[in-house]
């Protein structure tokens, strides 16, 4: 404990001038959940199982993955649906999920992305009788059908195991690192303990465990000129104003100094778009969401001046994002746990 006082306060992962607003948005993104209704395909229920109870409801963290839910689903099936003999036959490596509309769900996508992707796909289908809101963003359970055998291997990546999920997750983190800095030094510089630890944070859904490691690789949003003041707080809990230390290690990691923000764009029925997203534009102004959208999807987001009706909307973590949000800030505060900002574009009704 230094003479200046404690280095941790209010659950912030780091006392090095992480603004409270940054932590707030990171926590909000982390704690987002979506409702799932999981039903075993009735054709695959054995004859002697209890058909009345075959639906399992779960409020799943957006940052988690379907394979991580499998142990819980398995316990439910063993307890409630299958008898012991049938339960012994369950082989999780053959499980696969499908949406009500027959879309194959990707087990290596975060659950929040699966949910949002489903929402925007629905935006181009004929409206159902329950769509009352303008953007049809009601939070209804995503209905999944769980199949227990014969995965369509020609269309689905093999191995829905937690291990392969972890490798896919680590791969995404490394790619995000590369996109930001042109190298993966921050990721490869992590000790093995930290590399395992960040995935444990996902598995256990623990914000502090995740950010203990993530704070070493995710850019900061502190004002670009701040140095690294010795950790200190005054009794009211505010960090000291930035010192005049010219060393500025946080500057090196500042969100506005990346060469590109890791962003992917999802359309209702198209391939995923990924392009270079500099934090600032040529004129020095910050790269905003509206600029990004009107550059990449000018027909859906016509550049100003435009006074017609809204044609499409952009959603992240299930919420509409203000057009003047800065891409660099989004990359530091509202990325997914895998480091990527996922912008889901739906068609306005």
């Amino acid at each position, binding site marked *: 404990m230094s003479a200046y006082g404690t280095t941790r306060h209010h659950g912030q992962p780091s006392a090095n001038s992480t603004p409270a607003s940054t932590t707030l948005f990171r926590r909000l993104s982390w704690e987002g959940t979506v409702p799932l209704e999981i039903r075993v395909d009735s054709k695959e229920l054995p004859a002697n199982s209890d058909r009345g109870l075959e639906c399992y409801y779960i409020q799943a963290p957006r940052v988690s993955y379907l394979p991580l839910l499998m142990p819980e689903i398995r316990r439910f099936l063993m307890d409630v649906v299958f008898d012991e003999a049938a339960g012994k036959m369950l082989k999780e490596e053959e499980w696969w999920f499908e949406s009500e509309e027959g879309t194959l769900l990707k087990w290596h996508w975060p659950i929040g992305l699966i949910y949002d992707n489903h929402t925007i796909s629905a935006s181009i289908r004929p409206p159902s009788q329950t769509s009352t809101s303008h953007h049809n963003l009601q939070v209804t359970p995503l209905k999944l059908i769980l199949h227990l055998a014969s995965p369509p*291997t020609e269309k689905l990546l*093999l191995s829905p195991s937690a291990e392969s999920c972890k490798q896919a997750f680590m791969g995404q983190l490394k*790619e995000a690192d590369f996109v930001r800095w042109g190298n993966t030094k921050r990721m490869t510089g992590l000790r093995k303990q930290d590399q395992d630890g960040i995935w444990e944070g996902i598995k256990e859904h623990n914000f502090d465990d995740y950010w203990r490691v993530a704070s070493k690789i995710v850019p900061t949003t502190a004002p670009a000129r701040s140095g690294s003041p010795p950790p200190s707080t005054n009794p009211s809990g505010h960090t000291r104003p930035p010192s005049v230390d010219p060393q500025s290690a946080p500057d090196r990691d500042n969100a506005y100094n990346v060469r590109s923000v890791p962003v992917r764009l999802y359309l209702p029925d198209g391939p995923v778009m990924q392009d270079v997203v500099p934090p600032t534009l040529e004129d020095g102004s910050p790269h905003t969401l509206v600029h990004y959208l009107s550059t990449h999807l000018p027909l859906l987001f016509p550049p100003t001046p435009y006074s017609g009706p809204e044609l499409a909307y952009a959603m992240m973590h299930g919420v509409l994002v203000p057009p003047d949000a800065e891409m660099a800030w989004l990359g530091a505060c509202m990325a997914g746990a895998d480091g990527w900002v996922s912008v889901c574009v739906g068609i306005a009704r």
Partner: protein
Amino acid sequence: MHRIIALNWRHPAPVDACLEIDDSLDVVDDGTTASHESPDSLTCHQYVVLSATFRVPAFYFSIHGSSGSPLQLSDIVQTTLLREDVCEGTVATTFAVSHPSMNFPLLSQGEHPTLGTPCWYFHPCETASAVQEILKESKENIRKPLSWMEAWFTVLSTAVDMQ
């Protein structure tokens, strides 16, 4: 870039199949795949795709048996696609082949960036530096320097038998 070729098992069971190789690097012609009726015939779809993250080409492929189902990784390493020494010192799981000294798996699963189909691919991050080395050497040694893509294919063929 896409082509379909036929592959063999490295130590094939005695089978008399006479396999032709469809070597065109042009647009896919599904009708002329060279796989045969023999149980050991394998079809390999190969793609060269630009990696959006690493901004270099990456080599994606998938291999199917005659029944149409994709090969598992343990079988892929036994076909003639990969050069024998590629897997030295590597650790294989059902979903990747990795070398302890490398940041990314050597060979892992991924979705084709535009088709969305499951494929295997060689991680592209080390590619750029390998290509640069080859280009540098080619400028010094050979009268006609290699183009970037030629150098890239050279790097690729240290791991893959390009036939």
